[in-house]
């Protein structure tokens, strides 16, 4: 068994919400806050004083602090400037292109990578799990969209490392959901009827699931997971048999989700305001307010037929409008078309007809949208399965996978696939595929390389991911430089390069010069990510920043203490005003004023601490004087009572 300190948690690091879950004898459990909510908004607010707001707190203050509230950072993970350009109009915080096409967020004048932002969320989840479980958490399984490429997966793993977590496994969100669904089915069919389903939102489950459709029983069943989250879309076709969850094909879009549904409303309002007033409501604060408003409208339209928008435009008056459900549906129809198209492709890759899918498991908050449900039903010609809580099922599945990895569930096994073909740039700029999409992982391909010049010691390989024929149309994962090739005439060295995609869906490259038998060295310069050294540096820096965060925290505590002490002293002073010598009263009043002034102007916790101590000493006489007075008064009243 796993020692208690080595518990592995499952983390759903989402675009809008993140959750952490763990497994115990009752099954997978989500860590919840005091309101019973497992969701932590993936939002961070940076205050000018260096303190952080995370989760609901940051989300609730997003409009007041628009330029320093970072949200939807998952959409920026492992991407390049090309994708960033599409995201920028919708972000109220500052994003710039850093070195090597790495996206960087500017916070209080300091550049912060999306990996570091994600690490802050991960650290928060880690702390929550530690509070709940009463032990240190060091290991985690983190989920990613199935269609995440290598750079995006690497970035996620790096975020985990920066947060001080050993990322034991990266798993795909739809696969995690299938796992949670499968064990739920298994429990439902084996447990007595009175026992509740261990996972999912039971209140929405209208009918018990028929035994004949047991997902993990002897009869294999084929399911599709339709996962429309806050920022990403995936569809995965899986076969479930006897505890084995075998992914067959997957397709998706890593920039299509609830955010995009909000954006159609944002676009609508922005356009109409421009037409009406001629102004562009592009200030960070209005953009932020509009974003939150649009999200509310979207959610409202899942249950109501219309929703009202009211936006204060300051001097330009007010913008008011009602959006009907059918209007919203016509706006989002093209987005849903894209998801259906992805379903079609996934089925084609699995060589299956829609009718072959026995169940469509719906995951992600956006699957609450009626049009999404009806379009999915129409395509697969069956009612989608919506009994699971679409917000929690991925985290629960991650916790189950964590338990499998800890050796706690030998009866379950995930077998996953790689979403994108992997290849290398060949002569003439073509994409030479080495591993085809939907290949089972781990998988390995070997390729021979040689030199073009006499004595050449290095060979550069451009590694690509994607389905297009030209290297320029595929995603470059970076340049892999093979070094240490023994000096030989051109064309003589035979360097065998092994491209291995591991169980995380992450590429590992190794090389060997066949004639000398020497292991060739490989230097990887990621196209859109951090180098190993950079990750280590940030990890160390984060310890330093954690100190800064602590300082900021201490500053707030000290300022509160100063105000408390000053206020208290004023109260005492008022009480003893008649009896205290005038000079002493004036001196104390002056020191209160000085202390308050310092508290407002100084950001140095040491200085404030000293001043507070000094103040305590200087008011010692007053305190004693007041106590003596109180005692005298108390005695007087006691006497009076006797």
């Amino acid at each position, binding site marked *: 068994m796993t020692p208690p300190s080595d518990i592995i948690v499952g983390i759903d690091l989402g675009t809008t919400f993140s959750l952490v879950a763990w497994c115990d004898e009752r099954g997978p459990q989500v860590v919840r806050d005091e309101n019973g909510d497992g969701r932590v908004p993936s939002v961070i607010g940076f205050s000018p004083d260096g303190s952080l707001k995370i989760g609901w707190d940051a989300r609730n203050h997003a409009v007041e602090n628009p330029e320093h509230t970072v949200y939807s950072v998952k959409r920026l993970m492992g991407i390049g400037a090309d994708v960033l350009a599409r995201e920028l109009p919708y972000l109220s915080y500052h994003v710039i292109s850093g070195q090597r096409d790495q996206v960087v967020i500017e916070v209080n004048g300091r550049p912060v990578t999306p990996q570091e932002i994600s690490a802050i969320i991960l650290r928060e989840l880690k702390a929550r799990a530690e509070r709940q479980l009463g032990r240190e958490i060091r290991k985690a399984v983190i989920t990613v969209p199935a269609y995440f490429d290598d750079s995006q997966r690497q970035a996620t793993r790096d975020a985990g490392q920066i947060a001080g977590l050993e990322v*034991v*496994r990266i798993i795909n969100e739809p696969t995690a959901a299938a796992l949670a669904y499968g064990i739920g089915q298994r429990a439902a069919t084996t447990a007595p009827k009175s026992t509740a389903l261990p996972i999912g939102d039971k209140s929405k489950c209208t009918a018990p699931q028929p035994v004949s459709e047991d997902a993990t029983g002897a009869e294999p069943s084929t399911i599709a997971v339709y996962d429309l989250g806050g920022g990403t879309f995936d569809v995965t076709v899986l076969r479930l*048999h*006897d505890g*084995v969850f*075998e992914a067959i094909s997957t397709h998706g879009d890593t920039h299509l989700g609830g955010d995009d549904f909000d954006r159609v409303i944002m676009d609508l309002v922005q356009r109409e305001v421009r037409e009406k007033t001629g102004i562009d409501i592009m200030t960070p604060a209005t953009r932020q307010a509009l974003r939150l408003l649009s999200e509310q409208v979207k959610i409202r339209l899942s249950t109501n037929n219309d929703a009202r928008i009211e936006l204060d435009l300051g001097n330009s008056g007010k913008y008011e409008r009602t959006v009907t459900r059918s209007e919203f549906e016509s706006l989002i129809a093209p987005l849903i078309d894209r998801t259906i198209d992805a379903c079609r492709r996934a089925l*084609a890759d699995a060589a299956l007809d829609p009718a072959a899918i026995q169940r469509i498991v719906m995951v992600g908050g956006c699957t609450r949208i009626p049009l999404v449900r009806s379009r999915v039903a129409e395509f697969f010609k069956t009612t989608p399965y919506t009994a699971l809580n679409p917000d929690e099922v991925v985290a629960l599945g991650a916790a189950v996978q964590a338990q*499998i*990895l*800890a*050796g706690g569930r*030998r009866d379950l*096994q*995930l*077998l996953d696939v790689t979403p994108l073909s992997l290849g290398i740039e060949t002569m003439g700029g073509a994409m030479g595929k080495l591993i085809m999409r939907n*290949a*089972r*992982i*781990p*998988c*390995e391909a070997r390729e021979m390389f040689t030199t073009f010049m006499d004595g050449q010691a290095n060979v550069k390989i451009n590694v690509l991911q994607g389905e297009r024929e030209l290297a320029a149309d595929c995603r470059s994962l970076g340049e892999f430089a093979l070094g240490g090739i023994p000096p030989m005439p051109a064309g003589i060295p035979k360097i065998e390069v092994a491209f*291995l995609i*591991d*169980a995380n869906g992450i590429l590992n490259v190794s090389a060997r010069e066949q004639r000398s038998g020497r292991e060739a060295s490989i230097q990887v310069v990621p196209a859109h990510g951090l180098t190993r050294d950079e990750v280590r540096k940030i990890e160390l820096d984060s310890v330093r920043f954690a100190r800064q965060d602590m300082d900021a925290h201490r500053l707030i505590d000290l300022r509160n203490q100063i105000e408390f002490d000053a206020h208290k002293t004023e109260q005492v002073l008022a009480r003893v005003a008649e009896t205290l010598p005038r000079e002493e009263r004036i001196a104390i009043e002056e020191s209160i004023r000085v202390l308050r002034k310092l508290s407002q102007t100084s950001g140095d916790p040491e200085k404030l601490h000293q001043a507070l101590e000094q103040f305590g000493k200087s008011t010692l006489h007053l305190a004693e004087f007041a106590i003596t007075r109180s005692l005298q008064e108390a005695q007087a009243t006691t006497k009076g009572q006797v």
Partner: protein
Amino acid sequence: MNTTLRSFPIKCATCESLAQAPVACAECHSLLEHVSGADYFELFGLERSFDIAPADIQRKFLAIARNIHPDAFVSADAATQSVVLHLSSAVNKAYETLRDPVRRAEYILEVSGGKSAADDKRVAPELLAEVMMLREEIEELRAGGNTAAIAAIRPDIARKKDATLHKIADLCRRITADADASVHDDLRLQLNSIKYFDNLLAQLA
């Protein structure tokens, strides 16, 4: 050869073949060698035949995959993890080769000494002419926006591909150690033509 056996918990309750295979040697990782160099049929404990039941391959694969998947070795030492990683890659590749009829036929041709697609790119000349005609037809229909007619071509090509698959299966059955070289060449020819059908089908999708 004096081999020290390494004790991976890879023994499988359902699949005999892997249990009988040489277990990994601590020095040379002979299991790895065995798996990566193995006859894929042998690896899954199956007769070398084109006519293997998909359910059979799948059952054998799942039994093996479960035992050598990296998930079961998360707390193992780095060397073991590396061996397991290569091992499961090799088993996955074997499975993907055997479960797909075309790749299975390619593999049968390869292990029986036939030419690879890179060595012999020939296809039947009449196929080339036919494919060219079909391509032009599709282009014309597409230019005219005649989607119904384009959709009607699809079943026709699928039927032709099917007929070729039947020929491939038949040739695979005739490949034996003492088979005439013409069987190999013919199989190569048929396998090469599959790609043309696939490209046409992709063009219609």
